């Protein structure tokens, strides 16, 4: 019994390790998160996994594999106030371009709030994989966004990871 308590305590302590991976937010990494190499391998990884993100060389993007079956990536965003759109407007744009770009399998959307930070959640399938993207609102022209990629059998694990990860993000 004592050992069990100790194990639970240790697990809860280690499940999320604090990391300085964002200039704007405090971020907590999932347990067993293994970083995807250097910048070059990150680009190859995201290009293969997501067909995307290589267009923003300014963004330091962090990708991790968790238990070798789910991947998670995130990055800081910034935009000047004169070009900012509200969270609702951005979700509307994302919905519309999803209907245009993926008419047979458009994304589903929702909004959530963790630690005073509003997010758009976008879920979609592409090339046989499942994705959950999150986009935070802008706070002093700063934002944080990211993506989780997973197979069908890890649906629940990915949802739990999203919940825990967003719950671990706090404004600096």
């Amino acid at each position, binding site marked *: 019994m004592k050992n069990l308590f100790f194990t639970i305590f240790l697990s809860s302590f280690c499940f999320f390790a604090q990391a300085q991976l964002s200039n704007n937010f405090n971020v907590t990494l999932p347990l067993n998160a293994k970083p995807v190499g250097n910048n070059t391998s990150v680009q190859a990884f995201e290009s293969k996994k997501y*067909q995307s993100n290589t267009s923003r060389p300014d963004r330091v993007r962090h990708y991790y594999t968790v238990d070798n079956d789910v991947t998670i990536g995130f990055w800081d965003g910034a935009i*000047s106030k004169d*070009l900012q759109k509200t969270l609702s407007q951005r979700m509307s744009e994302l919905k519309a371009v999803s209907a245009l770009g993926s008419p047979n399998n458009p994304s589903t959307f929702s909004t959530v709030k963790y630690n005073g930070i509003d997010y758009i959640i*976008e879920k979609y399938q592409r090339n046989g994989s499942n994705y959950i993207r999150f986009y935070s609102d802008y706070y002093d022209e700063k934002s944080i966004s990211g993506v989780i990629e997973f197979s069908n059998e890890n649906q629940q694990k990915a949802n739990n990871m999203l919940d825990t990860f967003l719950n671990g993000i706090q404004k600096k």
Partner: protein
Amino acid sequence: MKKTNLLITLITTIIVLTCTILSCQKKDSQGSISSEALSQTMIQSLKDWHALNLKVQSVTKENSLGDLNQASKKLYPKWESAKYVTLSNGERLVYVDAPGYDLGTNTINFARVFLFSVNNDKITGGQIIEFYSKTNDLKNLSGLIANYKSPTIPNFDGSIISYDVNYGFQGSKVFVNSKLIQSTAHIEVKAETKPGTQTLGNRVAGTKILSEGQDNPCTYWYYNIYTDGELTDSIYLYSTGNCGGGSGGSGGAGDGGSTSPPPGGGNTQTTTQLPPFPADPCAQKPILNTEANNAVNSNAAQSIRSNTIATGKEYGAEQNLYSPQTDTYRTGAVRTDNSSNSFTPQFSWNNSTGFTIGVDHGHPGGFSPSPADVVWGAGNLNSSQFSQNPQFPGGGYADIDFYKTHFSLTTTTETGTYIMTVKDWGALSTAYDYFQTHQDALNLQYQILTQDDDGNSDYAILAMYGNAVNLFKAPAGSADFQQIVVNSTNNGTINQPCPTN
């Protein structure tokens, strides 16, 4: 003693500053026409390039206006005069004399030349450059040519207008007190109504050499300056066609062909023609503002916006002119395809339904112009209607030139209005061709890039088509358009600042 030292220091400073300024001015006026003769091989290369890039073959005799398949006369370089010129910015070009033209006015002087870009003995481009000056007699062009890209040209008050070798308008620069200012110059025409006929005339970007016969309508030509979209200077130049009581000359190279200004005209005659878009996006902004505030366009835009938001469907209408000779819009009916992500505009180029120079449509989702929107304007270049317009002598190319210099695409959203103009029709035509077979892939790319920029589709469309188009946006209810560009340092989007006067 201290006062003396202060005085000496002050005088020294003034002398140094004066020398610096004079030195800068002198640097501006540097550049030279070389006496180095071009090799026969190079001259042949220039001739070959020029022949290859002329859109139609020249004709040696005048054709009747009724022959719609007639070709226009073209301006030919005087190849024997070809020489190298080094501009004040160090750029080396080939300069070739062009046939002159008597404007028939003493108010402004005129000269024109050909300039060709050369890189490693290969011709990479060619232009017709026209100089209009109130202060310089233009008899010695060396200094002007060497400085024609400079913001300061000593002893030059006037304009420099650039055309491609087919006399397609490219851009203009206006100088006041030898300094470049934020205005644009255009050579424009005004037509006289002939009894028993409709108003005819021609809006041509430049002193195009028309092959006209005696039956042609009387046309009056003007040198017009626009500042912030308003006509701020207008000088009558000459007339062509049958104006009665005058020579009504053909206006050909070296011909006089000038008559008196039209009745009630004079040097302050105004025009109601729509100004073409200059190449500089900053100079386009006042025109966008004026066109958005046009009552016909504005009413249509309000209807498109309110219907799109209320129904979640795309509403739209074409922006048509009654004729290329007026700025009077006869915008098409506001309508919908009952689709949330498409609207089908109808291009027309005739007196019956109007002359389409743009389209306005709503995006209920609020995103920027889609790939299909962006390439639509290039598809219209294939329209057979361009060769059937009796209002342009020669039809075809003149119509297409007009269309290209006036086309814009408007996208109305809840948050604001996007206007897209074209910066490179060649690139847009290539994009159009590619779109025909890759529409699904391009729409997916548009989606992915919008996701990459956290729900900002402005970035997506500029990343895909920024080489071919300019993108502007004004907040909802405003016509204060700002150009959106991709920030070269971080690939995000920013509002591009423009110089203030």
